[in-house]
């Protein structure tokens, strides 16, 4: 028993400490070195950051160079595939182009309208300054979905910079080096994007599913039933991580026998990306205004002054709104007066109409009386032969005529 334990200890000691032939370091040293590296990499010291940036730059470039033959083969394969489906795609593209051209005009109008409305409510109107970036490393991992682009802090890329494929959102920058940057794709499990789902305008957060799609997470209870197929998903801008109104993908409802899944089919195919756009110049109108006004002033503005300027702007807006409301009020008052006049004239007209109706009614009664008088007047009139009659013109005579003669008692 003791000898087997000794053997185990000897084997372990030998495995850890013994430097075999041509081995420069013992494994124990390398284990410590690994743990030390993990600990250091989790610290955010300036020197460590610079070393990491240096390693990243070197490795990304090396990876790009090593991947050239593979990329060459892959690209040739894709080219051949493209040529085989060239004609059909051309036909489809032509159709789609015509459709899109007609839609584009409408979109431009809507965009212009949107901009105007945003300016009206003093919202952030973002001006884009996109730069083209090439993907130098696109190494998919089952655990992390990210790409490396050839633009870094030198090109004004910052952590959080939005990355696009045409106009579609692809992801955001999570690591910046001098000439390279890592982009976390929307399909990654760690990616969270606040979005709006139209046409119902439901707010939600989508995360990647670790494959090529996204899934809806964190949504208000009870609104899931409102979803319609092919709902359009775009960024809501909540949290200011992503700009608002960027198209992300379409809603896909997958119904199983047991459950319903709400997936997001991204507009962009992340596995086919070659070039992307990095939005480096997103500035708000508010910022532009402030910077424009202060061109002649000092370069550095005190935060209090900036706040005061914002407040002054707000007061101006309030005053403008106030005058507009006053004008509207006056206009409404005159409108009310006019309407009152119209009502009184209408009332007069109604009373005159009523009178005429009454007159007609009286005339009708008299006509009836005269008609009956001709037939039954002799029965009611007092005369020599009719001593029980009434004198002509009296109320009793009138009643007697209307009753078609005198009623006999009993």
């Amino acid at each position, binding site marked *: 028993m003791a000898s087997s334990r000794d053997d185990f200890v000897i*084997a372990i000691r030998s495995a850890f400490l013994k430097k075999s032939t041509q081995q420069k370091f013992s494994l124990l040293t390398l284990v410590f070195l690994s743990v030390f590296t993990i600990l250091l990499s989790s610290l955010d010291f300036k020197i460590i950051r610079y070393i990491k940036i240096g390693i990243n730059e070197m490795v990304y470039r090396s990876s790009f160079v090593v991947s050239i033959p593979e990329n060459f083969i892959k690209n040739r394969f894709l080219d051949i595939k493209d040529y085989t489906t060239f004609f059909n795609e051309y036909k489809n593209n032509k159709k789609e182009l015509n459709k899109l051209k007609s839609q584009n005009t409408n979109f431009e109008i809507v965009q212009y309208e949107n901009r105007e409305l945003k300016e009206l409510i003093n919202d952030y109107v973002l001006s884009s300054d996109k730069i083209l970036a090439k993907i130098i490393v696109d190494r*998919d*991992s089952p655990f992390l979905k990210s790409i490396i682009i050839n633009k870094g802090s030198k090109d004004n890329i910052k952590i959080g910079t939005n990355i696009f494929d045409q106009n579609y959102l692809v992801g955001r920058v999570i690591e910046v080096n001098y000439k390279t940057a890592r982009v976390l794709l929307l399909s990654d499990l760690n990616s969270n994007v606040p979005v709006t789902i139209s046409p119902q305008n439901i707010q939600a957060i989508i995360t990647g599913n670790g494959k090529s799609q996204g899934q809806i997470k964190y949504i208000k209870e009870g609104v899931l039933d409102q979803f319609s197929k092919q709902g359009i998903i775009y960024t809501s801008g909540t949290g200011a991580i992503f700009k608002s109104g960027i198209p992300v993908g379409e809603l896909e409802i997958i119904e199983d026998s047991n459950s319903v899944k709400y997936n997001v089919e991204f507009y962009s195919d992340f596995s086919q990306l070659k070039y992307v756009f990095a939005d480096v110049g997103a500035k708000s109108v508010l910022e532009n205004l402030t910077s424009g006004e202060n061109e002649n002033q000092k370069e550095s503005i005190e935060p209090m002054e900036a706040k005061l300027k914002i407040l002054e702007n707000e007061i101006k807006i309030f005053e403008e709104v106030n005058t507009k409301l006053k004008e509207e009020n006056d206009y409404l008052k005159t409108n009310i007066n006019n309407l009152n006049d119209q009502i009184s004239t209408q009332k007069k007209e109604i009373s005159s109409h009523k009178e005429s109706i009454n007159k007609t009614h009286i005339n009708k009664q008299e006509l009836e009386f005269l008609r009956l008088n001709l037939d039954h007047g002799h029965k009611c009139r007092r005369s020599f032969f009719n001593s029980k009659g009434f004198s002509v013109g009296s109320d009793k005579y009138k009643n007697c005529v209307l009753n078609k003669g005198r009623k006999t008692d009993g």
Partner: protein
Amino acid sequence: MVSFKTKGPYFKLYSWLPVIILFISVLNEFDLNYLNLDYFSFNFPFILIFFFTLKDFRHFDYLFVFLCGLINDTVVGFPLGISSLSYILICIATSYFRNITIRPNPIRDWFYFLFIVGLINSINYSVLSLFFLYNLILMDYLVNTFFTFLFYILFVSVFKYYLKGLND
């Protein structure tokens, strides 16, 4: 059959071939660890390191293995040192296994490999999710472990030809 009569530069290149392949596999975009297929992935560096540190450790410098780990972390985007630790743990396991083995048996190697890969992937998953708060899918790790285990035996038959050429 590959054979080298003189121990010239070609032999040196041939003897360093596994290390070169290891460097290429961690640097290259074409990652055998991920072939864009659902429920299919395997870890080629694990197989390579396990086999060559077990069978031909003299030509497989541990320092290079450590460096390959650093490169892999940089390319994939993991915290620096995670893959290095995984690779070095494989080296320790093979070193221990070599010390206790008197008569090598491929099937025993194979199942020992399964145990080691399972253990290392578990450590990897735990460290990344607990200390670095990464969101990871456990199923991916399990699938990866299973297919790495399955493919080990295929690659071993190829590597054996290489070793034969080296020893001849």
